[in-house]
């Protein structure tokens, strides 16, 4: 879908009073505490995301920043349908994510820096062919796409090697390839550059930048690395203790020195 000149682009993500509460069992360290918790568990309730309202236009690259435990990943998980919201509503590409409509799942791709969707004991090519079958992509077309993406990432040689034998950077590139194989309209990247060296980070950033320009894919990028945000994003969401403390363009954010210092402080405390 392309917006007419002068008109607002269609909305890709819309959240209204979105919230998520987690119920956790807590105890102090040690066997004694474990024994007490066995008979009398203590439960606490944590508001991971509190009443978030936002709209994200299609085709934009939005950065999501916040300290550890601020609620970034919880928010992304609700966006992808991994989590059911405790309150409020979320619509993504016209769907309610947690209903897991296959048509919706075919239109999103997600990379979570610390969790893999690759089969680690076999070469990546086998996982890509499985994903092609799951997403209903013709095998020949899928092979072409894999080769094309591998060439762009410079990892053609690594496609035939067991995934667990590859470096972290190579595996992350494979994760991104896996998320892009079915050409999603929305790409959610949760800390995709975590643990990568400078060169690998730059390759990934350059790829994401070009991909957004050519495919007009909406990209949501969560990162602790402000360089990822400043190089890739045109707007920014800052989340702190589950609340959205800033939403706006990167330019507005850069101009607002007070806010910038506050965000640096938030990120620094994580």
């Amino acid at each position, binding site marked *: 879908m392309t917006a007419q000149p002068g008109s607002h682009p269609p909305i890709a993500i819309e959240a209204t009073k979105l919230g998520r509460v987690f119920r956790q069992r807590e105890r102090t360290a040690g066997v004694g505490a474990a024994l007490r918790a066995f008979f009398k568990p203590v439960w606490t309730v944590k508001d991971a995301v509190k009443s978030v309202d936002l709209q994200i236009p299609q085709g934009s690259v939005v950065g999501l920043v916040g300290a550890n435990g601020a609620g970034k990943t919880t928010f992304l*998980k609700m966006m*992808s349908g*991994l989590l059911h919201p405790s309150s409020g509503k979320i619509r993504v590409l016209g769907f309610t994510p947690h209903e897991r409509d296959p048509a919706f799942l075919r239109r999103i791709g997600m990379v*979570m820096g610390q*969790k893999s*969707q690759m089969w680690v004991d*076999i070469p990546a090519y086998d996982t890509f062919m499985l994903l092609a*079958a799951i997403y209903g992509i013709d095998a020949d077309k899928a092979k072409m796409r894999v080769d094309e993406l591998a060439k762009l990432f410079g990892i053609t040689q690594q496609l035939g090697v067991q995934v667990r034998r590859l470096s972290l950077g190579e595996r992350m590139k494979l994760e991104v390839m896996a998320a892009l194989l079915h050409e999603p309209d929305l790409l959610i990247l*949760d800390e995709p550059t975590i643990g990568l060296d400078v060169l690998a980070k730059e390759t990934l950033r350059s790829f994401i930048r070009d991909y957004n320009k050519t495919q007009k894919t909406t990209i949501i990028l969560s990162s602790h690395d402000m360089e990822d945000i400043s190089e890739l994003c045109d707007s920014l969401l800052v989340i702190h203790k589950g609340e959205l403390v800033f939403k706006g363009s990167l330019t507005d954010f850069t101009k607002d020195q007070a806010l910038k210092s506050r965000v640096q402080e938030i990120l620094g405390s994580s």
Partner: protein
Amino acid sequence: MNAKAFSRVLKNTISVDLEYRFNYVMIALSSVITIAMEWAIFSHVFANRDQVGGLEASSAFAFILYGMILRTVQALWGPIFTSIEEIREGAFRRYILQPIFHPTYFLAQALGNKVTPFIGAVVICIVYKSPLFSSPETFLALGNLPYSVLSFALSTLLLWAVCLMIVYASFFLDESSFLIVSLNIAASMLSGSQLPLSWYPEIVRKVLMWTPLPLWGDWPLRAALGLLSYDEQIRYLGLWALWAAIVFFFVVLFYKRGLKRYESFGG
């Protein structure tokens, strides 16, 4: 069901298994040792008699062999513990994000995991039926072969469905491996695959008949040995249908409710 995805998961699972060839040596070795031990016990039992609890001495080895095949092909440790771990650690999210129904994925993984042992089992049965060995005539005879194959397939599917139900129970319990271990011990000791159910006290047999346990041992084993009467064949099919409906209901219930409360831990 997405047939192409199913076939790909199947192929990938076989590829993963082939990466770890040594596992097959260990399975073969442990199976031979168990058969030898059971044969020693059965030889002792049949030392002074031709028949014990309806099982003839000539059928004893066929019973031991087929019981071992059943237990080896039906036991499903790998995919089960992997799935439970994936739920606990948050890696289960890949199935939620992809347009595939996880039970389809699980069934393909289970089948892929058992393809090689199954091929081995078929070869062993063919060799055992050859003139080289004096296998009982009724064992996998042409007349009872279709029913034997059907009971084997349905029995295996039901056991895997119960395993899947237990996997989904970990959405609520965080950890359900203990249930899998209990199920496997019960299926091994009380299903009639290790010792014929006819050797158990009457009261135990009566209680067992109200459970699905005999469906995983007594049913396919006695079907293969040609020891089931027509009435028993029908009764077992009915019992299977009843338990399959119950298990299917709980698999779907646990899966749907489980996904709703799944927290997909970790970033």
